[in-house]
């Protein structure tokens, strides 16, 4: 069994074992088994770090076996510089989420833990799949555990949120299914994504394919104006669900643009690039402003996620190495930072059971250790140099200025808005005198919460101070991708 298969199937196997054996009576055993599963799943991804070769854009750790012969569907896995980090990121966030749910979840613990373990395996599968149907199966299958996570352990309006999440994202991906089958026919019976990259396609076909893919990936990212599901879902989802959703799931959409839309329909991607840039800028500027007026902390972070993901898509569609690498770095950084933001909100919510900014004030007085972490993550969210949040945004802005000064300038305003809404929230929640009795009774974070936040803090700082290992992995693959996108695929 290859390394990537191990990375995918280890958490799923642990999840199935938990589902089969776990009972609410043996909750301790269930939690420890889940933690062991998450840790083992993370450890099996580490050999990838050693074995990965930075100097080639080719797929690595490739596994290929026939899966459905009749449709020539293969179990075809591999990672390149674009997908590499997301495998590790997913496995890492999974460990954090298991720790985060430790005492908080009391009902059906085995199902909760199993859902996250299975979900993480499926998401790693999305990043590794090099076969269209394999990709689609993993991509869609992630909906089932997430639907259950939101619906079973979510907030008061969880049912609305669960349905909105499921149907909204399903609607987008159904058109992608049609596009995949069309490509299968057009390529004379192949679902191989890499061979689709080389397939010549007429202009109008490329446009249709581009928008079919756009329907799925833009909803998932989410890009303005199809972002409306995200705030509703974040608000109702349990903390762990929000963290995984923001940290990993949104990246599936952005990743799809790089793996499908741009290389398969490069002419359409260039033709419609302007539209994508405009939508991204609206997300960055307008949604950033929307975030500023939110009363609910989770909603605020959700809108800030949309704005940050706007940076990612902006970086992709300015078609230069800085932009694309910057977008990728921003995806990883946002994985750490948004995960940390949602987990911080979860820490407060577990104690006070309110997400309203107005229910807090002066938390720093009663929870000093926690406030220190929260400050770090807030700074990272507004892109302070030295934190992970800075690197990607800076690269994208630099790339955008190269592409067109005014686009760069508009994108840069996001740094101001980002600082404004994040710091304002920080001020209202953490600073000042103790706001009310609830805040007075708060106890500071325990060892478990400290561990979870500290792991994320280390990641945020490490990535901010030494981004080189991250960009080194991407450089060759990004250059190759851009070279490919620059060439026309129109039939001669």
């Amino acid at each position, binding site marked *: 069994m290859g390394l990537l298969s191990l990375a995918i199937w280890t958490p799923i196997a642990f999840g199935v074992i938990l589902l089969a054996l776990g009972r609410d009576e043996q909750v301790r055993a269930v939690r420890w088994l889940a933690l062991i599963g998450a840790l083992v799943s993370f450890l099996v991804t580490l050999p990838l770090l050693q074995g990965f070769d930075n100097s080639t854009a080719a797929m690595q750790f490739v596994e290929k076996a026939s899966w*459905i012969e009749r449709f020539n569907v293969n179990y075809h896995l591999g990672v390149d510089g674009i997908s590499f980090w997301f495998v590790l990121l997913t496995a890492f966030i999974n460990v954090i989420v298991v720790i985060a749910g430790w005492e908080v979840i009391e009902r059906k613990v085995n199902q909760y833990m199993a859902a996250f373990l299975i979900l993480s395996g499926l998401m790693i599968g999305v990043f590794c799949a090099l076969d269209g149907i394999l990709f*689609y199966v993993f991509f869609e*299958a992630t909906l089932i555990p997430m639907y*259950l996570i939101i619906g*079973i352990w979510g907030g008061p309006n969880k049912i609305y949120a669960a349905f909105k999440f*499921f149907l909204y994202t399903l609607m987008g991906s159904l058109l992608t299914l049609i596009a995949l*089958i069309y490509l299968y*026919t057009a390529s004379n019976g192949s679902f191989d994504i890499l061979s689709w990259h080389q397939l010549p396609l007429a202009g109008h076909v490329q446009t249709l394919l581009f928008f079919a893919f756009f329907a799925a990936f833009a909803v998932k990212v989410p890009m303005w104006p199809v972002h409306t599901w995200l705030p509703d879902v974040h608000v109702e989802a349990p903390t762990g669900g929000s963290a995984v959703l923001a940290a990993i799931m949104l990246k599936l959409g952005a990743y799809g643009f790089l793996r499908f839309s741009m290389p398969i329909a490069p002419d359409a991607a260039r033709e419609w690039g302007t539209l994508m840039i405009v939508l991204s800028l609206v997300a960055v500027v307008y949604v950033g402003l929307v975030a500023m007026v939110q009363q609910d902390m989770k909603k605020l972070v959700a809108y800030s996620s949309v704005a940050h993901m706007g940076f990612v898509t902006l970086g992709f569609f300015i078609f230069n190495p800085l932009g694309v690498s910057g977008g990728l770095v921003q995806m990883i950084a946002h994985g750490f930072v948004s995960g940390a933001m949602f987990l911080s909100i979860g820490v407060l919510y577990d104690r006070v059971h309110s997400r309203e900014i107005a229910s807090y004030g002066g938390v720093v007085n009663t929870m000093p250790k926690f406030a220190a972490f929260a400050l770090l993550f807030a700074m990272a969210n507004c892109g302070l140099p030295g934190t992970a949040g800075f690197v990607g945004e800076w690269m994208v802005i630099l790339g955008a200025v190269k592409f067109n000064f005014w686009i760069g300038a508009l994108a840069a305003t996001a740094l101001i808005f980002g600082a404004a809404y994040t710091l304002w929230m920080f001020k209202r929640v953490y600073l000042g005198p103790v706001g009310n009795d609830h805040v007075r009774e708060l106890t500071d974070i325990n060892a478990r919460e400290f561990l979870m936040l500290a792991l994320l803090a280390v990641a945020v700082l490490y990535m901010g101070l030494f981004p080189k290992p991250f960009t080194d992995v991407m450089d060759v693959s990004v250059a190759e991708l851009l070279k490919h996108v620059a060439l026309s695929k129109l039939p001669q």
Partner: protein
Amino acid sequence: MMDPTSWMTIYPEIVLLVMACVIALVDLTVTSPRRTATHVLTLLTLAGVAWLNASYALADQTQYGWGHLVVSDPLGHWLKCFAAVAVLVTLVYARPYAADRDMLRGGELFSLSLFALLGMSFMISGQNFIVIYLGLELLTLSSYALVALRRDHAVATEAAMKYFVLGAMASGFLLYGMSMLYGATGSLQLDEVLQAIASGQIKHQVLVFGLVFIVAGLAFKIGAVPFHMWIPDVYQGAPTAATLLIGGAPKLAAFAIMVRLLVEGLMPLAVDWQQMLSFLAIASLLIGNLAAIAQTNLKRMLAFSTIAQMGFVLLGFVAGVINGQTTLAANAYSSAMFYVVGYVLTTLASFGIIMLLARQGFESEEISDLAGLNQRSPLYAGVMSVCLFSLAGIPPMVGFYAKLAVLQSLIASGQGFYIGLAIYAVFMSLIGAFYYLRVVKVMYFDEPVTATTVSAPADVRVVLSVNGVLVLVLGIVPGALMALCAQAVKSMLAL
């Protein structure tokens, strides 16, 4: 005519007929109210018939018997094998349910099921209008009786009445269409009808006139809109055991007679029947999915969902012949076959759960009766949600690959109309996802009304778990079943 090969072609049917009579007689001596001896004997018979058919199918030979009245080919034997297994599984689920409702008295449930299967077998392997029609009548007459098995139950009796009246009309349509074609071509044999039509000597209008009635009759039997009215009433009114007996295995037989009549007999008229089936499919997908949303009764909802699912099966038939070319035919019809097999498998498990949850004096057929099932029994909630996600076409369940295969057959045609149909179909399945998800919601997100745990006899528990796991496993490794369907359809078309 009495050569040994002829006997060989219907050997499984002979076994079935003999055993059906034996079981009816043996049951006279059985006194236990649970009818264990009859039950076991029936299951053994079904397993034997399934095994016989599978070994025939694996031999991969095509032989005609009785002067072309019946055929023994892999397609037919696989379908008969699946149908026997489906009836077997249905009876395993049905026994505790039927025992609670005094439906085992007299053992008719068992012998009627076997006669119904015998009817299906002749529908599946018939090569002659009369044989196919007699098989169909044997199936439907047994089904009428099965629906009416609870004589003292007003709703069931009403359902049986409706089923009988509408079913008789459908049979009339079919017979009328067959007689038109007989008059035009001078033969009841499918192969001779095919040759006569292909010769081009016969007036097109006459043939199409007969075809309309055949298609209408078939549409009645599979429950395609606008011939669907009986489905919701009968599904809801019949005792669940009977619902599953008419909603499970007979779909395989319905698929088979569509193949036999339309493909083997009337292939030259494909342009005409493809249009008719397209219309039926469009209407079925629309009405089935929209009406299912409004239902609060689970059996009725599943009935409308069946209508929508049959719309997808019909889509598998419409893209076989493109511009007179039959190169895509095997691809298209095998996708429809895979769809039907996957659908029957899923239906068995979902109705199995409904029967399992029913108790003495409680039918458990409202969607709200499933509330909080996950807290009462995670296993059965899991099986049911796997089925529902499969029906909704979410990977990695078998239903996704079925939809994938059908959509692929449409898009492979390269025709704008069919690509449009594919897009229409996926949006209809988006609507479908809503009402399937709603049941999952009730099971997982709502609080249970009763705290009673769900208990089931060991055989039901094992079969139901295996059935649910198969829906998932056939989704993770669908290759073998797909190849089987493709192979069976190819060898049928090669004639």
